[in-house]
């Protein structure tokens, strides 16, 4: 399983990176952590003419670092999963990411894999995209023309397809710092630790006593993109956490989640698991200390 031949360039500036992207077009693939890309190359599922290694741009503020400013937290594209895992800032202000990151593969992968890589590749079972959608984050893209901002809820369009245009790369994502009174829960079901999950749920809401408001509920593995469950959210909005509220949210899911059969789980099973996970996530959301 040896990768096919390709050329390699490591630009020292964004301008150089854009030059390379423009020159090579479809033949170019961006390389950051490479934890997904290298596997596909070793399997010869992809044969790019050139890899553009953007890790040389890690010193650029525009692409890296975890920063808090004016109620917003930005996570640079070149931030590794491990840096997110270790970040006090993320743990406190974008708690959902901190809850999600230990589910990503294993330490050796997390040491190298990047936030931007996960967002750009948009695997439907990946953790960050569903968190970005649940938290209504903005994805910031950068190109020769400058920065462009796309809400996460519009960025993921179809299976492995995002709003990234040719000549663009993911620069960072911007999250709202978790306001007081808000809680988040991230849960996923995987048969082995570190596997891509069968189904996962990212839940975020303001919890006052047992009243839920400003509810966000998004799912991974339940469609080609992270699925924001608007009907289920509506069934919870402003309501008290109670068995019939939960049941209403669970019932709404069938209408808006679209999982496909895979090797091990049918659509029916995935929908069932999504319902079960929803119940558990809502229970956790409303427990003290969540």
């Amino acid at each position: 399983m040896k990768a096919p031949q390709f050329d390699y360039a490591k630009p020292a500036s964004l301008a150089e990176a854009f030059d390379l992207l423009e020159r090579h077009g479809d033949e170019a693939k961006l390389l950051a952590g490479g934890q997904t890309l290298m596997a596909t190359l070793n399997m010869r599922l992809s044969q790019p003419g050139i890899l553009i290694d953007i890790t040389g741009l890690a010193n650029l503020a525009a692409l890296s670092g975890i920063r808090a400013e004016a109620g917003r937290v930005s996570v640079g594209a070149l931030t590794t999963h491990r840096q997110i895992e270790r970040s006090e800032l993320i743990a406190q202000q974008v708690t959902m990411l901190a809850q999600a990151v230990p589910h990503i593969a294993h330490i050796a992968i997390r040491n190298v894999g990047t936030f931007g890589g996960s967002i750009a590749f948009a695997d439907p079972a990946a953790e960050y995209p569903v968190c970005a959608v649940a938290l209504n984050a903005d994805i910031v893209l950068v190109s020769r023309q400058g920065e462009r901002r796309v809400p996460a809820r519009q960025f993921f369009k179809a299976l492995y397809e995002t709003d990234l245009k040719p000549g663009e790369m993911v620069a960072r994502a911007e999250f709202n710092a978790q306001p007081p009174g808000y809680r988040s829960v991230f849960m996923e079901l995987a048969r082995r630790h570190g596997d891509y999950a069968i189904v996962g749920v990212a839940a975020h809401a303001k919890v006052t006593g047992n009243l839920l408001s400003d509810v966000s509920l998004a799912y991974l593995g339940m469609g080609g993109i992270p699925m924001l469950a608007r009907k289920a959210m509506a069934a919870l909005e402003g309501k008290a956490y109670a068995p019939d509220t939960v049941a209403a949210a669970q019932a709404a899911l069938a209408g808006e989640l679209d999982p496909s059969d895979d090797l091990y789980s049918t659509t029916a099973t995935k929908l069932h698991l999504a319902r079960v996970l929803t119940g558990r996530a809502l229970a956790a959301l409303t427990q003290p200390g969540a």
Partner: protein
Amino acid sequence: MNARAELPVVAPGTRTDTGYIGKSIPRANAKRLLQGRGAYTDDLRFPRLAHIVYFRSPHAHARIVHLDLSKAKQSPGVIAVFDGRAIATVCTPWVGVLGHLKGIKSAPQHPVAIERACWQGEAVAAIVAETRAQAEDALQLVEAEWEELPALTDMETALAPGTPVIHPELGDNLCFHRELDTGGVDDAFSRADLVVEETYHFGRHTGVTLEGRSIVADYNPAQHTLTVYQATQAPHMMQDVFSRHLNIPEANVRVVTKDVGGSFGIKVHVYPDEVAAAAISVLLKRPVKFVADRMESFLTDIHAREHRVRARLALTKEGEFLAFEIDDLTAIGPYSVYPRTSGIEGNQVVNLTGGPYAHKQYRARLDVVFTNKNVTCQYRAVGHPVAVAVTEGIVDLAALKLGMDPAELRRKNLIADDAYPCTSASGMKFELLSHHQCLDKLLALMDYRKLRAEQAELRTQGVYRGIGLAAMIEVTNPSPAFYGVGGARISAQDGATLRLEPTGMVTVMVSVTEQGQGTEAVFAQIAATVLGLTMDKIKVVTGDTEVTPYGGGTWASRGAGIGGEAVLQAGKALKSNILDVAAAMLNVDKSTLDITANEVFDKITGATRMPLSEVGRVGYFRPDTLPMTFQAELTVTRHYTPRTYGFTFTNGIQASLVEVDPDTGFVKLLKHWAVEDCGTVLNPMLVDEQMRGGIVQGIGAALFEHCIYSEDGQLQNGNLADYLVPMSGEMPDMLIAHVSSPTKTSELGAKGAGEAGTAGAPAAVMNAINDALAPFQARVTAQPFTPEKILRALGKV
């Protein structure tokens, strides 16, 4: 849990002094592996080494209409390209049949297919290049035109009229059929108070050795010699295969096996792409290497265990088993694998079902059918996991229907410990087993009563735990009854040569091989004990047909029992010869001397007389000082093969404790226990770890592992992300204990232990899951037990 292995220091009934036998000594040969300084086949370096990749059929069944290798030949770094016809000029085909499997049939198989590919992944051309990467580049330039043929993938239709026959000259898709009937079965079922029936499915899966299959073949045309470095369990068998199929005299073929990164039966078979590698070396007259990468491994390493078994058990209302009946349908690939055949696994299911129990009536039917999926053959525990799951599953179902505790039902029916020797309903001869002792020990070890009480309590809280038991018998130390009688040139005997070195060390050369289970360590322990040496004086050599005696290698849990006995006998003989020299040097009666701690000493006075190095010095350099008629013989070889019993059976019992989440169908493995009787335990730490490793493989089969094929014969999950192997996060701690019934067929008394874990674990886990699901009247019977299957059984989807 830090509990070390149990130490049965003295094996009752044997004449062997304990010394190092029975001690948990760490393996000397593990040190180099801990430093990354092992020598696996892919680590070795050769001048002008060329690399092979195979162009493999993308279709499950297709005629090769046209193959154009010309562009590939021009690719940078490519040395040569070969199609099946080119390979056939130096290599003859083979057929995987044996005489004792009556009626077994299979078609001739070439190392590289010539007219037709019969499974997805079958090699149809070879590309040889300076580097593997360049060979893979060239692979993309191969142009092939195929005529797709119907692919047979559903074994249930294999024998139906109208289903295309894969090999028309064979007449049908039946490889092997067997029926066994003790008589009186229908009578037993009609007079039974209770008949339970259930059908079990077993998902095809594979060994997934971490080191891929590896071979370097080096043909020297000037001497007409072939040296092969191969990760194989059976170097002498391979020596014979290369010799016959490449027409090179046997003594001119040398097979060397260095470190092997896991095998479990995967690397004991003859693989077309490995034989082709040797053929390519003959054609190119230079060393060539082939290593199967992970995706190739999934496509072409032997698969195993695709069975559908219908089972029935007749019993009285008191719970006495009257009769077992099974109907086993199993799918193999398009060829029976050479030379051990793909009929053995099903044959074992017939031989072993019901094995632990005292019933007399049994009827079994076996159909082994060809399909256009990868070939299948012996993989760790061969047939046992199926037989044990079927037996223990139906026994548990019977317990459920009777409202009887499963342990009690087993106690009523396990063959009594004093009933031996005896013969099973299927004709298996048992020397001495210990089912009841093992059951008692297990129930005590796991505190069965406490677990049942906990289970009941937790059920009231909506927590569903299950306890599953699995009693078993296991084939070890086989005689030629396994293969030799059928005409296979597979040796069931092994030899050990022990040589005293001048400095007083002893080199032990044995024909059994090492794949990490510790055969070399165990041989050192035996040799040191018998000779009276310390362990640091022993060096063990295995895996070289030019160095060791001729033998069978490692398979069917025979290494320690058979190889160990050869070492013991050779050790005794060498000791005698050493004392002959010492007695001559000292001019005393040999019977007054003995050896301990590397020194010859006087048994009567206790005084040390000389170090062994002195015997070595005189024996090798100063024989002129010994009596005129005396010839020192300080190298001794002994061989051993089991004679009295066709198979030396062991027995054991396992238990699994699980918690099933009825909402998600997820199974959490809480703990696992095994009580194993493998006779004399040579190194408890090594044996217990073989048990644990084997159990985890069995857990893999029960919960995770499945080679999933589409209807048109495409393997859907041939990579480690989609094929799930057990990882540490989901595995339980496993407590192992022993009972010891040594075999009297050898002085060592050791039976085999390498496969028992895998044999019993799937049954224990299945029974545990079903026990957990019992309150819901749900049962699962198709392995692997995925959340999907459990949810379906629960009616949740």
